């Protein structure tokens, strides 16, 4: 036989030998040189199964449980293990549609045949109990427990916040703690105190096969670490007052903030419209969230912290304080009101007319002319080189009073509000192209001012305290295994003359006793306060009230904003007075029941 391609037999032999040599070298690399694979192998046999830590519980100031935990189940599927099954029975068992089941299974199979995919999450314990009984009929499906929030009371949703699955960026920023599918606080206390609340995940080492079937604990569980539950939060919230506030604000848009002046403790923080916090747990969470997010009244918007309103007349005490503090007036400075404040072409109307003897009286009658006058007097004071400098000095006092800055409350995303300085007007009008007349409306709390309800209440706390305020806070202590770790709070001393403050307090008391707020006098309680109306270019004015009670040794400072409700005396003042009465006496006196009734029934929704 002639074989002209004799040499090719060697080529083929060489190729075979070469391949075997390469493979042996590769095996040497995998099995002898690389230590990685041996380590990975251990990881794989001993799968580390995460044990989720229950989040810390949250209590109100009286020890009432307001955020609890409960178990819920997620249903998973491993496509390679699924056998032919009665889809109709399965669908009715777990309560999803046939088409959704098909779609989810298709997606799961497209993801991986061997790794589990999430089929349905947030199944309640009751529902899962029923499902579990029949789940053995459907191989490839299994349930996994996890802890979610439960709310004994349907209130304080904005303040408590909610939890949800971590996002990719949160995983990256979490320092390796979070893994896909973990829960994290997304807003409110849940977000702010995430590190305290989340606890520490534990782990169990189990022998598992590739189908996620556990083959038993490793080394009798001696390598396991227990999950450490999160710390409990003892808050300063008065849940009864909070719920009462939410009730009063029903069918209204606005905020209530109540603070204990001496301690800065937040007693209530109402944002209306409110929503039931349990809407954002469980199976329908996503749907509910979408509903809330698309609501035109923006129920997810935390108004007390973020909404900035022109404070209107409620700002007048601050204007008077600044004027006295900067030495431009004394408590006894008088001014004759002609029913309007007119300079050149500008005229600010006043509901009141006549001689205003002093600061106290000016506050009592909320005389616009008086405050326009003293505001201009302050910033035009000859001690300042120019009005711009005067305005900036004035702004500094406002800053000390907690206006136009964050108070530092222990809740996320607090708003700043806004107090304009000279740079602001320089930008709008040009340097030296504006004067005190241009910006006189600041004197009566209108114009470019913005204050959050929290800042309004905090201002009242500072006045009630007689010259200092303590960072408002919601959490009194973090309970670390029984021992309460108190929260550090800063005491902000406002360098004010106590004499000036007592003048303001007396003025505020007279407002309710005999001024614009006399409709909301509470028998037996010395309520001091100030009504206000915030001009609203988009619709009806906002009704405002700020105040504190009792006059001596005050126990509550409060701010109420009711959007599109007109005069301050019409809604905000009554609601504030009811809150104060409820907090101080735990009841509403029968002479004021009609007022309570009117407030509860009022529907001011657009």
């Amino acid at each position: 036989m002639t074989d002209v391609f004799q040499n090719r037999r060697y080529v083929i032999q060489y190729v075979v030998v070469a391949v075997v040599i390469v493979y042996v070298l590769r095996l040497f690399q995998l099995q002898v040189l690389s230590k990685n694979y041996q380590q990975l192998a251990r990881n794989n046999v001993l799968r580390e199964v995460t044990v989720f830590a229950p989040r810390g519980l949250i209590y109100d100031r009286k020890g009432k449980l307001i955020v609890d935990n409960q178990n819920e189940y997620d249903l998973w599927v491993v496509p390679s293990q699924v056998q032919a099954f009665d889809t109709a029975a399965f669908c009715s068992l777990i309560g999803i549609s046939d088409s959704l089941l098909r779609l989810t299974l298709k997606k799961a199979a497209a993801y991986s045949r061997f790794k589990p995919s999430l089929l349905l999450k947030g199944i309640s314990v009751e529902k899962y109990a029923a499902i579990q009984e029949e789940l053995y009929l459907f191989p490839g499906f299994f349930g996994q427990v996890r802890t979610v929030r439960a709310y004994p009371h349907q209130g304080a949703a904005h303040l408590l916040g909610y939890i949800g699955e971590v996002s990719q960026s949160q995983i990256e920023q979490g320092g390796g703690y979070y893994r896909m599918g973990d829960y994290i606080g997304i807003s409110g206390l849940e977000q702010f105190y995430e590190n305290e609340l989340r606890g520490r995940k534990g782990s169990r080492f189990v022998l598992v096969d590739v189908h996620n079937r556990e083959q038993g604990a490793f080394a009798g569980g001696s390598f396991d670490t227990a999950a450490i539950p999160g710390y409990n939060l003892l808050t300063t919230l008065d849940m009864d007052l909070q719920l009462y506030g939410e009730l009063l604000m029903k069918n209204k848009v606005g905020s209530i903030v109540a603070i204990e002046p001496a301690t800065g403790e937040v007693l209530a923080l109402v944002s209306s419209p409110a929503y039931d916090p349990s809407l954002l747990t469980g199976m329908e969470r996503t749907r509910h969230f979408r509903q809330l997010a698309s609501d035109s009244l923006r129920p997810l918007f935390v108004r007390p912290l973020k909404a900035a309103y022109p404070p209107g007349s409620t700002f007048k005490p601050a204007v008077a304080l600044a004027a006295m503090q900067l030495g431009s007036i004394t408590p006894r400075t008088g001014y004759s009101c002609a029913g309007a404040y007119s300079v050149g072409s500008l005229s600010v109307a006043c509901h009141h007319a006549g001689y205003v003897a002093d600061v106290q009286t000016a506050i009592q009658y909320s005389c616009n002319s008086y405050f326009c006058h003293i505001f201009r007097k302050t910033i035009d004071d000859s001690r300042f080189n120019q009005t711009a400098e005067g305005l900036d000095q004035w702004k500094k006092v406002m800053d000390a009073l907690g206006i136009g800055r964050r108070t530092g409350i222990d809740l996320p995303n607090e708003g700043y509000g806004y107090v304009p300085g000279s740079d602001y007007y320089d930008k709008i009008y040009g340097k030296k192209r504006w004067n005190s007349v241009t910006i006189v409306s600041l004197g009566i709390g209108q114009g470019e001012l913005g204050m959050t309800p929290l800042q309004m209440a905090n201002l009242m706390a500072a006045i009630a305290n007689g010259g200092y305020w303590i960072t408002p806070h919601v959490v009194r202590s973090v309970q670390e295994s029984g021992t309460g770790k108190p929260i550090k709070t800063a005491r902000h001393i406002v360098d004010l003359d106590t004499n000036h403050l007592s003048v303001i307090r007396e003025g505020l008391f007279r407002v309710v006793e005999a001024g614009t707020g006399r409709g909301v006098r509470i028998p037996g309680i010395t309520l001091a306060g100030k009504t206000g109306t915030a001009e609203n270019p988009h619709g009806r004015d906002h009704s405002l009230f700020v105040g504190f009670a009792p006059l001596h040794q005050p126990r509550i400072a409060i701010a109420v904003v009711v959007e599109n409700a007109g005069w301050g005396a019409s809604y905000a003042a009554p609601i504030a007075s009811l809150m104060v009465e409820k907090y101080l006496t735990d009841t509403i006196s029968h002479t004021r029941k009609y007022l309570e009734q009117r407030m509860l029934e009022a529907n001011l929704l657009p």
Partner: protein
Amino acid sequence: MTYYVSRRPNQGIDWLLIGLVVTLMVIGVLAVFSSGAADGHFRLLDLTQMHGRQLLWMLVSLVVAGVIVLVDSKVYTVFAYAVYGVMMVLLLLVFVFGVTVRGDTNWLVLGPVRMQPSEFAKFATALALAKLMGSQNFNIRSLRQQLLALAILGLPAVLVLLQGDAGSAIVFASYALVMYRFGLSAGYLLAVVLLVALSLLTVVMDPTLLVLILFALGALVLIAVRKNRALLLTGAVALLLSVGYVFASGYVFEHMLEPHQQDRIRVLLGQEAAARDADYNVRQSKIAIGSGGFWGKGFLNGTLTRYNFVPEQSTDFIFCTIGEEFGFWGSTLLLLLFLALILRILFIAQRQRSRFSMIYAYCVASVLFFHLFINIGMTIGLMPVIGIPLPFISYGGSSLLSFTILVFILVKLDGDRLAILR
């Protein structure tokens, strides 16, 4: 009938070859036992267990092997085309009566016996190819003959591919090596290798890296053939064409389609899940093999393979069990056994006097080599995941029987090499 029965069957039998094959079979049964037995009690002929069935198949295969040796070797040359024809009919029958097992619709069920005609098509094709190329007037340089040979390989390949078993289809490309051995221009072989490699690699590899590797390999080839102008030119053109092919397929997919369209196409082709699972299999496989270390964990002590960590571990990924339990020395020994087997067959091929026997021997060597190359390469992460078995080791009656038939026809042809002068 007597005509077809070998008169002295014992004569000229290559016992070394048979010894190697039986050794591999025994290793296979043990490996299947180890990969399937989580509970560890061993009953030899337990047909409910995989190892029991594998053992039964081994015995059946050996009986069939004996029959093959008893039959006159003339039968294989005379009926080569007939056997090929029958197998093609069986392959066609799969389209009508096919049963789906583990996602592949390539099974035929005859009473208690299930078989995969795609496995048996391998030796049938080898017979037909040997018959065609062994005939006196066959000229590899003739285009007509080339097309005929291509048709013999292409028919089963296409039928198997249509059954959704791309891995088995690719196996038929291994016969290109045989055609190369007997005179097909090296360019053709290179083209086949390149085309198979590129189509596989574009799916599983970063195109940029692929192009770099192509250039590196191309440069080496071009340097090697730098003295031959024609080859140099052909090589350069081939290199440019392949780079172009990679870029074109990659570019169209990556740049002309929106991401969601890409996803849709991947999902449509079942590629998304397939790719992720393949990735997963290879990772688990490498872990299992790597965890064996130098000495291995010992027989039945492979924690990974015993707890089903590697999917398909008793079939396509059987090498993991050996890698984990017997470590580097065991894996190397197995590779050397296969090397010895293939080299022995190549040696046997060279001593044949009949052209048919010689070509058939090369077919056997090529198919075995191709399976070894792909299967072990995939378990150690050097080859893409293509579901073909490791000869004599992987669990599965059809493949075990078909490889046995493949080899023992050669044993018989070799045994008669002195008696028959054709």
